[in-house]
Protein backbone atom coordinates (compact mmCIF):
# COMPACT_ATOMS: atom_id res chain seq x y z
CA UNK A 1 0.00 0.00 0.00
CA UNK A 2 1.14 3.50 -0.79
CA UNK A 3 1.35 6.00 2.06
CA UNK A 4 -0.53 8.59 0.07
CA UNK A 5 -3.54 6.34 -0.52
CA UNK A 6 -5.00 4.99 -3.72
CA UNK A 7 -5.29 7.16 -6.83
CA UNK A 8 -8.62 5.63 -7.77
CA UNK A 9 -11.34 4.40 -5.44
CA UNK A 10 -14.54 2.96 -6.84
CA UNK A 11 -17.33 1.65 -4.61
CA UNK A 12 -20.64 0.12 -5.70
CA UNK A 13 -20.44 2.00 -8.98
CA UNK A 14 -23.51 1.57 -11.17
CA UNK A 15 -24.55 3.15 -14.44
CA UNK A 16 -27.99 2.63 -15.89
CA UNK A 17 -29.01 3.96 -19.30
CA UNK A 18 -32.61 4.37 -20.36
CA UNK A 19 -32.89 3.44 -24.02
CA UNK A 20 -35.93 3.74 -26.29
CA UNK A 21 -36.94 0.55 -28.05
CA UNK A 22 -39.53 -0.54 -30.56
CA UNK A 23 -40.25 -3.38 -32.96
CA UNK A 24 -39.26 -3.11 -36.61
CA UNK A 25 -41.75 -1.90 -39.21
CA UNK A 26 -44.05 0.95 -40.07
CA UNK A 27 -46.82 -0.04 -37.65
CA UNK A 28 -44.44 -0.05 -34.71
CA UNK A 29 -43.03 3.33 -35.84
CA UNK A 30 -46.54 4.82 -35.93
CA UNK A 31 -47.37 3.33 -32.52
CA UNK A 32 -44.18 4.79 -31.04
CA UNK A 33 -45.48 8.28 -31.91
CA UNK A 34 -48.06 7.92 -29.15
CA UNK A 35 -46.54 5.42 -26.83
CA UNK A 36 -42.78 5.24 -26.39
CA UNK A 37 -41.33 2.17 -24.80
CA UNK A 38 -38.13 2.44 -22.83
CA UNK A 39 -35.89 -0.13 -21.31
CA UNK A 40 -33.31 0.24 -18.59
CA UNK A 41 -29.89 -1.10 -19.44
CA UNK A 42 -27.47 -1.56 -16.60
CA UNK A 43 -24.11 -0.99 -18.28
CA UNK A 44 -22.12 -1.14 -15.05
CA UNK A 45 -23.45 -2.93 -12.01
CA UNK A 46 -22.08 -2.42 -8.50
CA UNK A 47 -18.38 -2.56 -9.28
CA UNK A 48 -15.74 -1.78 -6.66
CA UNK A 49 -11.96 -1.58 -6.87
CA UNK A 50 -9.02 0.60 -5.90
CA UNK A 51 -5.91 1.42 -7.89
CA UNK A 52 -2.69 2.51 -6.22
CA UNK A 53 -0.38 5.23 -7.54
CA UNK A 54 1.88 3.98 -10.32
CA UNK A 55 -0.10 0.80 -10.99
CA UNK A 56 -0.75 -0.29 -14.56
CA UNK A 57 -4.05 -2.15 -14.62
CA UNK A 58 -5.62 -3.93 -17.57
CA UNK A 59 -9.35 -3.59 -17.87
CA UNK A 60 -10.61 -6.57 -19.83
CA UNK A 61 -13.95 -7.55 -21.18
CA UNK A 62 -15.81 -8.25 -24.40
CA UNK A 63 -17.61 -5.51 -26.35
CA UNK A 64 -20.45 -4.02 -24.31
CA UNK A 65 -19.03 -5.30 -21.01
CA UNK A 66 -18.99 -1.80 -19.47
CA UNK A 67 -15.29 -0.94 -19.84
CA UNK A 68 -15.68 2.34 -21.71
CA UNK A 69 -18.64 3.39 -19.56
CA UNK A 70 -16.47 2.89 -16.49
CA UNK A 71 -13.58 4.86 -18.01
CA UNK A 72 -15.98 7.67 -18.88
CA UNK A 73 -17.25 7.77 -15.30
CA UNK A 74 -13.69 7.82 -14.00
CA UNK A 75 -12.74 10.68 -16.30
CA UNK A 76 -15.86 12.74 -15.52
CA UNK A 77 -17.69 12.36 -18.84
CA UNK A 78 -20.54 10.37 -17.31
CA UNK A 79 -22.41 10.80 -14.05
CA UNK A 80 -22.75 7.52 -12.15
CA UNK A 81 -26.30 6.42 -11.42
CA UNK A 82 -25.32 5.07 -8.00
CA UNK A 83 -22.03 4.56 -6.22
CA UNK A 84 -18.87 6.36 -5.30
CA UNK A 85 -15.91 7.34 -7.46
CA UNK A 86 -12.86 9.19 -6.29
CA UNK A 87 -9.94 9.93 -8.60
CA UNK A 88 -7.00 11.80 -7.09
CA UNK A 89 -9.41 12.77 -4.27
CA UNK A 90 -11.76 14.43 -6.74
CA UNK A 91 -15.29 13.51 -7.71
CA UNK A 92 -14.76 13.20 -11.49
CA UNK A 93 -18.26 14.29 -12.52
CA UNK A 94 -17.62 17.73 -10.99
CA UNK A 95 -14.92 18.16 -13.66
CA UNK A 96 -12.85 20.53 -11.56
CA UNK A 97 -9.94 22.19 -13.35
CA UNK A 98 -7.37 20.69 -11.00
CA UNK A 99 -8.75 17.21 -11.70
CA UNK A 100 -8.90 17.66 -15.48
CA UNK A 101 -5.34 18.99 -15.49
CA UNK A 102 -4.06 15.78 -13.90
CA UNK A 103 -5.74 13.14 -16.03
CA UNK A 104 -5.93 12.19 -19.66
CA UNK A 105 -8.27 9.94 -21.62
CA UNK A 106 -7.02 8.55 -24.91
CA UNK A 107 -9.60 6.77 -27.02
CA UNK A 108 -8.14 4.81 -29.89
CA UNK A 109 -10.96 5.71 -32.25
CA UNK A 110 -11.20 9.42 -31.43
CA UNK A 111 -9.21 12.28 -32.85
CA UNK A 112 -8.35 15.25 -30.65
CA UNK A 113 -5.72 16.91 -32.82
CA UNK A 114 -6.57 19.65 -35.32
CA UNK A 115 -7.09 17.71 -38.52
CA UNK A 116 -5.73 20.26 -40.98
CA UNK A 117 -2.71 21.45 -39.03
CA UNK A 118 0.60 19.85 -38.11
CA UNK A 119 0.50 18.19 -34.68
CA UNK A 120 2.96 20.76 -33.30
CA UNK A 121 0.27 23.43 -33.66
CA UNK A 122 -2.19 21.31 -31.67
CA UNK A 123 0.55 20.75 -29.08
CA UNK A 124 0.91 24.53 -28.80
CA UNK A 125 -2.82 24.82 -28.22
CA UNK A 126 -2.65 22.19 -25.50
CA UNK A 127 0.10 24.23 -23.86
CA UNK A 128 -2.31 27.16 -23.61
CA UNK A 129 -5.27 24.98 -22.56
CA UNK A 130 -3.36 23.29 -19.73
CA UNK A 131 -1.43 26.45 -18.83
CA UNK A 132 1.90 24.63 -19.07
CA UNK A 133 4.87 26.95 -18.42
CA UNK A 134 6.79 27.20 -21.68
CA UNK A 135 10.06 25.58 -20.49
CA UNK A 136 8.11 22.62 -19.05
CA UNK A 137 6.08 22.39 -22.25
CA UNK A 138 9.14 22.38 -24.48
CA UNK A 139 10.85 19.76 -22.34
CA UNK A 140 7.77 17.50 -22.29
CA UNK A 141 7.16 17.96 -26.02
CA UNK A 142 10.74 17.16 -26.98
CA UNK A 143 10.82 14.15 -24.68
CA UNK A 144 7.54 12.75 -26.05
CA UNK A 145 8.55 13.38 -29.65
CA UNK A 146 11.80 11.60 -28.94
CA UNK A 147 10.27 8.64 -27.09
CA UNK A 148 7.59 8.13 -29.72
CA UNK A 149 10.01 8.73 -32.60
CA UNK A 150 7.74 11.26 -34.32
CA UNK A 151 10.27 14.05 -34.95
CA UNK A 152 9.51 14.21 -38.70
CA UNK A 153 5.80 13.57 -38.41
CA UNK A 154 4.72 16.39 -36.12
CA UNK A 155 5.34 18.96 -38.84
CA UNK A 156 3.00 17.30 -41.34
CA UNK A 157 -0.75 18.05 -41.31
CA UNK A 158 -2.47 15.42 -39.17
CA UNK A 159 -4.74 14.43 -42.07
CA UNK A 160 -1.66 13.24 -43.98
CA UNK A 161 -0.52 10.83 -41.24
CA UNK A 162 -1.20 7.10 -41.24
CA UNK A 163 -3.43 5.67 -38.50
CA UNK A 164 -0.45 4.54 -36.43
CA UNK A 165 1.43 7.81 -36.87
CA UNK A 166 -1.66 9.74 -35.90
CA UNK A 167 -2.13 7.61 -32.79
CA UNK A 168 1.42 8.33 -31.69
CA UNK A 169 0.86 12.05 -32.22
CA UNK A 170 -2.46 11.79 -30.32
CA UNK A 171 -0.71 10.13 -27.40
CA UNK A 172 2.00 12.80 -27.36
CA UNK A 173 -0.64 15.55 -27.38
CA UNK A 174 -2.55 13.86 -24.56
CA UNK A 175 0.52 13.63 -22.33
CA UNK A 176 2.05 17.10 -22.73
CA UNK A 177 0.57 18.24 -19.43
CA UNK A 178 2.23 15.27 -17.68
CA UNK A 179 -0.99 13.74 -16.37
CA UNK A 180 -0.78 11.68 -13.22
CA UNK A 181 -3.46 9.27 -14.46
CA UNK A 182 -3.80 7.81 -17.95
CA UNK A 183 -7.08 6.27 -19.05
CA UNK A 184 -6.29 4.46 -22.29
CA UNK A 185 -9.23 3.03 -24.18
CA UNK A 186 -8.00 0.71 -26.93
CA UNK A 187 -4.90 2.78 -27.67
CA UNK A 188 -3.57 0.26 -30.19
CA UNK A 189 -6.79 -0.51 -32.03
CA UNK A 190 -6.33 -0.99 -35.77
CA UNK A 191 -2.54 -0.66 -35.64
CA UNK A 192 -0.07 -3.14 -37.11
CA UNK A 193 1.94 -5.35 -34.77
CA UNK A 194 5.11 -3.26 -35.00
CA UNK A 195 3.27 -0.07 -34.13
CA UNK A 196 1.39 -1.81 -31.30
CA UNK A 197 4.73 -2.87 -29.85
CA UNK A 198 6.19 0.63 -30.04
CA UNK A 199 3.17 2.19 -28.33
CA UNK A 200 3.24 -0.53 -25.69
CA UNK A 201 6.88 0.05 -24.87
CA UNK A 202 6.27 3.79 -24.79
CA UNK A 203 3.48 3.39 -22.22
CA UNK A 204 5.72 1.17 -20.09
CA UNK A 205 8.53 3.73 -20.31
CA UNK A 206 6.19 6.63 -19.49
CA UNK A 207 4.91 4.76 -16.44
CA UNK A 208 8.48 4.00 -15.34
CA UNK A 209 9.72 7.56 -15.78
CA UNK A 210 6.74 9.42 -14.35
CA UNK A 211 5.23 6.95 -11.93
CA UNK A 212 1.89 7.54 -13.66
CA UNK A 213 -1.10 5.36 -12.94
CA UNK A 214 -2.49 3.66 -16.02
CA UNK A 215 -5.86 2.02 -16.58
CA UNK A 216 -5.88 0.36 -19.97
CA UNK A 217 -8.51 -1.40 -22.00
CA UNK A 218 -7.47 -3.43 -25.00
CA UNK A 219 -8.68 -6.27 -27.13
CA UNK A 220 -5.07 -7.26 -27.72
CA UNK A 221 -3.87 -9.55 -24.96
CA UNK A 222 -0.30 -8.77 -25.96
CA UNK A 223 -0.88 -5.20 -24.72
CA UNK A 224 -2.14 -6.46 -21.40
CA UNK A 225 0.57 -9.09 -20.99
CA UNK A 226 3.32 -6.60 -21.78
CA UNK A 227 2.06 -3.83 -19.52
CA UNK A 228 -0.20 -5.05 -16.73
CA UNK A 229 0.62 -7.16 -13.71
CA UNK A 230 -2.94 -6.73 -12.53
CA UNK A 231 -6.13 -7.15 -14.50
CA UNK A 232 -9.76 -6.43 -13.79
CA UNK A 233 -12.09 -8.58 -15.84
CA UNK A 234 -15.54 -7.12 -16.39
CA UNK A 235 -18.46 -8.84 -18.05
CA UNK A 236 -22.12 -7.78 -18.25
CA UNK A 237 -21.18 -4.80 -16.08
CA UNK A 238 -19.88 -6.83 -13.13
CA UNK A 239 -16.35 -7.71 -12.09
CA UNK A 240 -15.51 -11.37 -12.64
CA UNK A 241 -11.90 -11.16 -11.57
CA UNK A 242 -9.55 -8.62 -10.01
CA UNK A 243 -6.01 -9.77 -9.37
CA UNK A 244 -2.63 -10.66 -10.77
CA UNK A 245 -2.61 -11.54 -14.45
CA UNK A 246 -0.68 -14.70 -13.57
CA UNK A 247 -3.50 -15.79 -11.26
CA UNK A 248 -6.10 -15.48 -13.99
CA UNK A 249 -5.13 -18.83 -15.48
CA UNK A 250 -5.35 -20.56 -12.11
CA UNK A 251 -8.73 -19.02 -11.41
CA UNK A 252 -10.36 -19.51 -14.82
CA UNK A 253 -8.11 -21.88 -16.77
CA UNK A 254 -9.95 -25.17 -16.50
CA UNK A 255 -7.41 -26.92 -18.72
CA UNK A 256 -3.67 -27.14 -19.25
CA UNK A 257 -1.70 -28.07 -22.31
CA UNK A 258 0.77 -30.96 -22.41
CA UNK A 259 3.30 -30.79 -25.22
CA UNK A 260 4.83 -34.16 -25.85
CA UNK A 261 7.59 -35.31 -28.25
CA UNK A 262 7.40 -39.01 -29.15
CA UNK A 263 9.85 -41.49 -30.65
CA UNK A 264 6.99 -43.10 -32.55
CA UNK A 265 4.71 -40.42 -34.06
CA UNK A 266 2.04 -42.98 -35.07
CA UNK A 267 0.71 -43.79 -31.56
CA UNK A 268 -2.81 -42.67 -30.73
CA UNK A 269 -3.19 -39.97 -28.04
CA UNK A 270 -6.97 -39.67 -28.00
CA UNK A 271 -7.36 -41.51 -24.72
CA UNK A 272 -5.18 -38.93 -22.88
CA UNK A 273 -7.07 -35.75 -23.77
CA UNK A 274 -8.12 -33.50 -26.63
CA UNK A 275 -5.38 -33.36 -29.27
CA UNK A 276 -5.07 -29.69 -30.25
CA UNK A 277 -2.28 -30.12 -32.80
CA UNK A 278 -0.02 -32.82 -34.14
CA UNK A 279 3.05 -32.07 -36.17
CA UNK A 280 5.56 -34.84 -37.04
CA UNK A 281 6.76 -36.20 -33.68
CA UNK A 282 5.28 -33.35 -31.60
CA UNK A 283 1.74 -33.19 -30.24
CA UNK A 284 -0.22 -30.81 -28.02
CA UNK A 285 -2.97 -32.19 -25.80
CA UNK A 286 -5.48 -30.22 -23.76
CA UNK A 287 -6.22 -31.90 -20.41
CA UNK A 288 -8.34 -30.96 -17.36
CA UNK A 289 -6.22 -28.91 -14.93
CA UNK A 290 -6.91 -31.24 -11.97
CA UNK A 291 -5.79 -34.34 -13.87
CA UNK A 292 -2.70 -32.85 -15.47
CA UNK A 293 -0.08 -34.62 -13.35
CA UNK A 294 -1.91 -37.97 -13.53
CA UNK A 295 -2.17 -37.83 -17.33
CA UNK A 296 1.48 -36.68 -17.66
CA UNK A 297 2.55 -39.70 -15.57
CA UNK A 298 0.44 -42.01 -17.74
CA UNK A 299 2.02 -40.61 -20.91
CA UNK A 300 5.53 -41.14 -19.52
CA UNK A 301 4.70 -44.70 -18.45
CA UNK A 302 2.76 -45.80 -21.51
CA UNK A 303 4.63 -44.21 -24.42
CA UNK A 304 8.20 -43.74 -25.72
CA UNK A 305 8.37 -40.06 -24.69
CA UNK A 306 11.45 -38.03 -25.69
CA UNK A 307 10.29 -34.78 -24.10
CA UNK A 308 7.24 -33.50 -22.19
CA UNK A 309 6.28 -29.99 -21.03
CA UNK A 310 3.19 -28.72 -19.21
CA UNK A 311 1.86 -25.24 -19.96
CA UNK A 312 -1.06 -23.05 -18.97
CA UNK A 313 -3.48 -22.29 -21.78
CA UNK A 314 -2.65 -19.16 -23.76
CA UNK A 315 -4.11 -16.16 -21.95
CA UNK A 316 -6.46 -15.42 -24.88
CA UNK A 317 -8.05 -18.83 -24.40
CA UNK A 318 -8.35 -18.30 -20.66
CA UNK A 319 -10.09 -14.98 -21.21
CA UNK A 320 -12.43 -16.60 -23.72
CA UNK A 321 -13.27 -19.31 -21.20
CA UNK A 322 -13.76 -16.66 -18.53
CA UNK A 323 -16.32 -14.79 -20.59
CA UNK A 324 -18.00 -18.02 -21.63
CA UNK A 325 -18.28 -19.03 -17.97
CA UNK A 326 -19.57 -15.62 -16.93
CA UNK A 327 -22.31 -15.41 -19.54
Amino acid at each position, binding site marked *: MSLEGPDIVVGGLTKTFVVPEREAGLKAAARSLFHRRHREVRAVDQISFTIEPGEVVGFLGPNGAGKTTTLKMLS*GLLFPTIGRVSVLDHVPSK*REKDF*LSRITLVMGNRNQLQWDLPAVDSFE*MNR*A*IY*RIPRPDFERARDELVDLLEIGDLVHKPVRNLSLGERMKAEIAGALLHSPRILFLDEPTIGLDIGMQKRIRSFIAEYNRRNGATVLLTSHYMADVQALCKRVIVIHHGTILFDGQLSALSERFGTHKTIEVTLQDPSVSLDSYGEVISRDADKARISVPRAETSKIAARLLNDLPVVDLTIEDLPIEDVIEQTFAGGS
Partner: protein
Amino acid sequence: MVVAVRPRRLPAILDFYLTVMRTAVQEQFQYRAANYAYMIGMLAEPVIYLVVWSTVANAQGGEVGGYTASQLAAYYIVWTLVRNINIVFTPNGWEWRIREGELSGMLLRPVHPIHYDLAYFAGWKVVVVVMWLPLAVVLTAVFRPDLTVSPVEAIVFSVSLLGAYLIRSMFLWVLGMITFWTTRVAALYELYFTAELLLSGRLVPLSLMPPWAQTLADFLPYRWTFGFPIEALVGDLETSELLFGLGMQAAWTLAGAVLVALVWRRGIRRYSAVGN
Protein backbone atom coordinates in the same frame (compact mmCIF):
# COMPACT_ATOMS: atom_id res chain seq x y z
CA MET B 1 25.56 46.57 -17.21
CA VAL B 2 23.10 44.18 -18.73
CA VAL B 3 19.78 43.93 -16.99
CA ALA B 4 17.90 40.74 -17.62
CA VAL B 5 14.29 41.56 -18.25
CA ARG B 6 11.94 38.69 -17.59
CA PRO B 7 9.07 38.71 -20.05
CA ARG B 8 5.80 39.19 -18.22
CA ARG B 9 3.63 36.15 -18.52
CA LEU B 10 0.38 36.77 -20.30
CA PRO B 11 -2.66 36.09 -18.18
CA ALA B 12 -3.53 32.45 -18.88
CA ILE B 13 -6.94 33.13 -20.40
CA LEU B 14 -5.51 35.76 -22.75
CA ASP B 15 -2.75 33.36 -23.75
CA PHE B 16 -5.43 30.75 -24.45
CA TYR B 17 -7.48 33.15 -26.59
CA LEU B 18 -4.47 34.32 -28.59
CA THR B 19 -3.21 30.77 -29.14
CA VAL B 20 -6.58 29.45 -30.31
CA MET B 21 -7.06 32.51 -32.53
CA ARG B 22 -3.66 31.89 -34.08
CA THR B 23 -4.61 28.25 -34.66
CA ALA B 24 -7.85 29.36 -36.34
CA VAL B 25 -5.97 31.79 -38.59
CA GLN B 26 -3.51 29.06 -39.62
CA GLU B 27 -6.33 26.62 -40.27
CA GLN B 28 -8.63 29.00 -42.15
CA PHE B 29 -5.89 30.37 -44.39
CA GLN B 30 -5.63 26.82 -45.69
CA TYR B 31 -9.22 27.17 -46.87
CA ARG B 32 -8.79 30.43 -48.79
CA ALA B 33 -10.75 29.22 -51.79
CA ALA B 34 -13.59 27.80 -49.68
CA ASN B 35 -13.75 30.97 -47.59
CA TYR B 36 -13.86 33.14 -50.69
CA ALA B 37 -16.55 31.01 -52.30
CA TYR B 38 -18.57 31.22 -49.08
CA MET B 39 -18.13 34.97 -48.86
CA ILE B 40 -19.10 35.58 -52.48
CA GLY B 41 -22.17 33.39 -51.97
CA MET B 42 -23.02 35.39 -48.88
CA LEU B 43 -22.78 38.68 -50.83
CA ALA B 44 -25.77 37.67 -52.96
CA GLU B 45 -28.09 38.31 -50.02
CA PRO B 46 -27.26 42.01 -49.32
CA VAL B 47 -26.84 42.79 -53.02
CA ILE B 48 -30.39 41.56 -53.70
CA TYR B 49 -31.75 43.64 -50.79
CA LEU B 50 -29.76 46.63 -52.00
CA VAL B 51 -30.97 46.41 -55.57
CA VAL B 52 -34.61 45.96 -54.47
CA TRP B 53 -34.61 48.84 -51.99
CA SER B 54 -32.62 51.16 -54.24
CA THR B 55 -35.23 50.57 -56.94
CA VAL B 56 -38.01 51.34 -54.45
CA ALA B 57 -36.19 54.49 -53.28
CA ASN B 58 -35.66 55.72 -56.83
CA ALA B 59 -39.33 54.99 -57.68
CA GLN B 60 -40.43 57.06 -54.66
CA GLY B 61 -38.48 60.13 -55.69
CA GLY B 62 -35.06 59.08 -54.39
CA GLU B 63 -35.83 58.08 -50.77
CA VAL B 64 -37.44 55.28 -48.77
CA GLY B 65 -37.91 55.34 -44.99
CA GLY B 66 -35.40 58.19 -44.71
CA TYR B 67 -32.71 56.34 -46.72
CA THR B 68 -31.47 57.53 -50.12
CA ALA B 69 -30.17 54.97 -52.61
CA SER B 70 -26.57 55.78 -51.72
CA GLN B 71 -27.32 55.59 -47.98
CA LEU B 72 -28.85 52.18 -48.58
CA ALA B 73 -25.67 51.24 -50.42
CA ALA B 74 -23.68 52.28 -47.34
CA TYR B 75 -26.07 50.30 -45.11
CA TYR B 76 -25.72 47.07 -47.06
CA ILE B 77 -21.96 47.34 -47.63
CA VAL B 78 -21.43 47.79 -43.87
CA TRP B 79 -23.93 44.93 -43.52
CA THR B 80 -21.45 42.60 -45.24
CA LEU B 81 -18.80 43.35 -42.62
CA VAL B 82 -21.23 43.01 -39.71
CA ARG B 83 -22.51 39.74 -41.12
CA ASN B 84 -18.99 38.38 -41.37
CA ILE B 85 -18.27 39.41 -37.81
CA ASN B 86 -21.41 37.87 -36.35
CA ILE B 87 -20.97 34.43 -37.93
CA VAL B 88 -20.57 32.10 -34.96
CA PHE B 89 -20.76 28.39 -34.14
CA THR B 90 -24.17 27.37 -35.47
CA PRO B 91 -26.76 25.30 -33.64
CA ASN B 92 -26.53 22.71 -36.43
CA GLY B 93 -22.91 22.14 -35.45
CA TRP B 94 -24.02 20.91 -32.04
CA GLU B 95 -25.63 17.79 -33.41
CA TRP B 96 -22.38 16.90 -35.17
CA ARG B 97 -20.30 17.87 -32.17
CA ILE B 98 -22.20 15.50 -29.90
CA ARG B 99 -22.53 12.64 -32.40
CA GLU B 100 -18.84 12.66 -33.34
CA GLY B 101 -17.68 12.81 -29.73
CA GLU B 102 -15.95 16.16 -30.16
CA LEU B 103 -17.83 17.51 -27.16
CA SER B 104 -16.43 14.74 -24.94
CA GLY B 105 -12.93 15.78 -25.95
CA MET B 106 -13.76 19.38 -25.07
CA LEU B 107 -15.17 18.35 -21.70
CA LEU B 108 -11.88 16.74 -20.77
CA ARG B 109 -10.08 20.08 -21.03
CA PRO B 110 -9.84 22.39 -18.06
CA VAL B 111 -11.39 25.26 -20.06
CA HIS B 112 -15.10 25.88 -20.66
CA PRO B 113 -15.86 25.02 -24.32
CA ILE B 114 -17.49 28.40 -24.97
CA HIS B 115 -14.07 30.03 -24.61
CA TYR B 116 -12.78 27.77 -27.36
CA ASP B 117 -15.63 28.70 -29.70
CA LEU B 118 -15.33 32.42 -28.97
CA ALA B 119 -11.57 32.32 -29.51
CA TYR B 120 -11.67 30.13 -32.61
CA PHE B 121 -14.32 32.17 -34.40
CA ALA B 122 -12.60 35.42 -33.38
CA GLY B 123 -9.44 34.12 -35.06
CA TRP B 124 -11.45 33.18 -38.13
CA LYS B 125 -12.63 36.82 -38.31
CA VAL B 126 -9.07 37.95 -38.93
CA VAL B 127 -8.97 35.83 -42.09
CA VAL B 128 -12.47 36.85 -43.10
CA VAL B 129 -11.84 40.58 -42.70
CA VAL B 130 -8.64 40.42 -44.74
CA MET B 131 -10.55 38.63 -47.49
CA TRP B 132 -13.52 41.00 -47.20
CA LEU B 133 -11.48 44.17 -47.89
CA PRO B 134 -11.11 43.75 -51.69
CA LEU B 135 -14.79 42.80 -51.97
CA ALA B 136 -15.74 45.95 -50.06
CA VAL B 137 -13.67 48.00 -52.51
CA VAL B 138 -15.51 46.45 -55.46
CA LEU B 139 -18.94 47.00 -53.83
CA THR B 140 -18.01 50.62 -53.09
CA ALA B 141 -16.93 51.19 -56.68
CA VAL B 142 -20.14 49.67 -58.04
CA PHE B 143 -22.77 51.09 -55.65
CA ARG B 144 -21.15 54.42 -54.63
CA PRO B 145 -22.27 54.60 -50.97
CA ASP B 146 -22.83 57.84 -49.09
CA LEU B 147 -20.89 57.39 -45.86
CA THR B 148 -19.50 60.07 -43.56
CA VAL B 149 -18.08 58.76 -40.31
CA SER B 150 -17.16 60.72 -37.19
CA PRO B 151 -14.44 59.41 -34.84
CA VAL B 152 -17.07 58.69 -32.16
CA GLU B 153 -19.13 56.67 -34.64
CA ALA B 154 -16.05 54.73 -35.72
CA ILE B 155 -15.18 53.86 -32.12
CA VAL B 156 -18.75 52.90 -31.20
CA PHE B 157 -19.00 50.81 -34.40
CA SER B 158 -15.81 48.89 -33.51
CA VAL B 159 -17.00 48.19 -29.97
CA SER B 160 -20.48 47.27 -31.22
CA LEU B 161 -18.97 44.63 -33.53
CA LEU B 162 -17.60 42.90 -30.44
CA GLY B 163 -20.99 43.24 -28.75
CA ALA B 164 -22.77 41.81 -31.79
CA TYR B 165 -20.33 38.90 -31.89
CA LEU B 166 -20.77 38.12 -28.20
CA ILE B 167 -24.57 38.39 -28.16
CA ARG B 168 -24.99 36.19 -31.24
CA SER B 169 -22.46 33.66 -29.90
CA MET B 170 -24.28 33.38 -26.58
CA PHE B 171 -27.79 33.07 -27.97
CA LEU B 172 -26.87 30.60 -30.70
CA TRP B 173 -24.98 28.57 -28.10
CA VAL B 174 -28.14 28.44 -25.97
CA LEU B 175 -30.15 27.42 -29.03
CA GLY B 176 -27.57 24.79 -29.96
CA MET B 177 -27.62 23.32 -26.46
CA ILE B 178 -31.23 22.25 -26.99
CA THR B 179 -29.55 19.35 -28.79
CA PHE B 180 -28.81 17.94 -25.35
CA TRP B 181 -32.51 17.17 -24.98
CA THR B 182 -33.65 16.47 -28.49
CA THR B 183 -31.60 15.64 -31.55
CA ARG B 184 -33.79 17.14 -34.31
CA VAL B 185 -34.30 20.83 -33.67
CA ALA B 186 -33.86 22.25 -37.17
CA ALA B 187 -37.44 23.61 -37.23
CA LEU B 188 -36.81 25.58 -34.05
CA TYR B 189 -33.60 27.00 -35.51
CA GLU B 190 -35.49 28.07 -38.64
CA LEU B 191 -38.04 29.90 -36.50
CA TYR B 192 -35.23 31.70 -34.68
CA PHE B 193 -33.46 32.70 -37.89
CA THR B 194 -36.68 33.92 -39.53
CA ALA B 195 -37.39 36.16 -36.54
CA GLU B 196 -33.80 37.36 -36.73
CA LEU B 197 -34.13 38.15 -40.43
CA LEU B 198 -37.16 40.34 -39.83
CA LEU B 199 -36.36 41.95 -36.49
CA SER B 200 -32.61 42.55 -36.65
CA GLY B 201 -32.17 44.94 -39.54
CA ARG B 202 -30.77 42.14 -41.66
CA LEU B 203 -33.53 42.10 -44.28
CA VAL B 204 -34.21 45.85 -44.23
CA PRO B 205 -33.21 48.73 -41.99
CA LEU B 206 -35.56 48.58 -38.99
CA SER B 207 -36.89 52.06 -39.75
CA LEU B 208 -38.53 50.56 -42.84
CA MET B 209 -40.43 48.04 -40.73
CA PRO B 210 -43.94 48.76 -39.35
CA PRO B 211 -43.99 50.46 -35.91
CA TRP B 212 -45.19 47.32 -34.11
CA ALA B 213 -42.23 45.35 -35.47
CA GLN B 214 -39.84 48.09 -34.38
CA THR B 215 -41.36 48.02 -30.87
CA LEU B 216 -41.06 44.23 -30.76
CA ALA B 217 -37.43 44.47 -31.91
CA ASP B 218 -36.69 46.69 -28.92
CA PHE B 219 -37.40 43.77 -26.59
CA LEU B 220 -35.34 41.17 -28.41
CA PRO B 221 -31.57 40.70 -28.83
CA TYR B 222 -31.55 40.61 -32.64
CA ARG B 223 -31.26 44.31 -33.51
CA TRP B 224 -28.16 44.65 -31.34
CA THR B 225 -26.37 42.06 -33.49
CA PHE B 226 -27.17 43.62 -36.91
CA GLY B 227 -29.09 46.89 -37.04
CA PHE B 228 -27.37 48.76 -34.25
CA PRO B 229 -23.74 48.30 -35.39
CA ILE B 230 -24.70 49.27 -38.96
CA GLU B 231 -26.71 52.30 -37.88
CA ALA B 232 -23.92 53.35 -35.51
CA LEU B 233 -21.71 53.84 -38.56
CA VAL B 234 -24.20 54.70 -41.29
CA GLY B 235 -27.05 56.47 -39.47
CA ASP B 236 -27.17 59.82 -37.74
CA LEU B 237 -27.48 58.59 -34.17
CA GLU B 238 -26.95 61.03 -31.31
CA THR B 239 -24.12 60.29 -28.90
CA SER B 240 -26.69 59.40 -26.25
CA GLU B 241 -28.30 56.89 -28.65
CA LEU B 242 -24.91 55.40 -29.44
CA LEU B 243 -24.13 54.97 -25.74
CA PHE B 244 -27.58 53.56 -25.07
CA GLY B 245 -26.98 51.03 -27.84
CA LEU B 246 -23.69 49.93 -26.32
CA GLY B 247 -25.42 49.66 -22.94
CA MET B 248 -28.11 47.45 -24.47
CA GLN B 249 -25.44 45.29 -26.05
CA ALA B 250 -23.73 44.91 -22.66
CA ALA B 251 -27.06 44.00 -21.06
CA TRP B 252 -27.90 41.41 -23.73
CA THR B 253 -24.38 39.95 -23.52
CA LEU B 254 -24.82 39.55 -19.78
CA ALA B 255 -28.28 38.03 -20.25
CA GLY B 256 -26.84 35.63 -22.84
CA ALA B 257 -23.98 34.66 -20.54
CA VAL B 258 -26.38 33.94 -17.67
CA LEU B 259 -28.57 31.84 -19.99
CA VAL B 260 -25.53 29.95 -21.29
CA ALA B 261 -24.45 29.17 -17.72
CA LEU B 262 -27.92 27.98 -16.68
CA VAL B 263 -28.66 25.87 -19.76
CA TRP B 264 -25.11 24.48 -19.86
CA ARG B 265 -25.32 23.27 -16.25
CA ARG B 266 -28.57 21.41 -16.89
CA GLY B 267 -27.61 20.28 -20.38
CA ILE B 268 -24.27 18.86 -19.40
CA ARG B 269 -25.90 16.98 -16.55
CA ARG B 270 -28.21 15.38 -19.07
CA TYR B 271 -25.38 14.69 -21.52
CA SER B 272 -23.37 13.07 -18.76
CA ALA B 273 -26.33 10.96 -17.77
CA VAL B 274 -26.99 9.72 -21.28
CA GLY B 275 -23.54 9.68 -22.88
CA ASN B 276 -23.11 9.50 -26.61
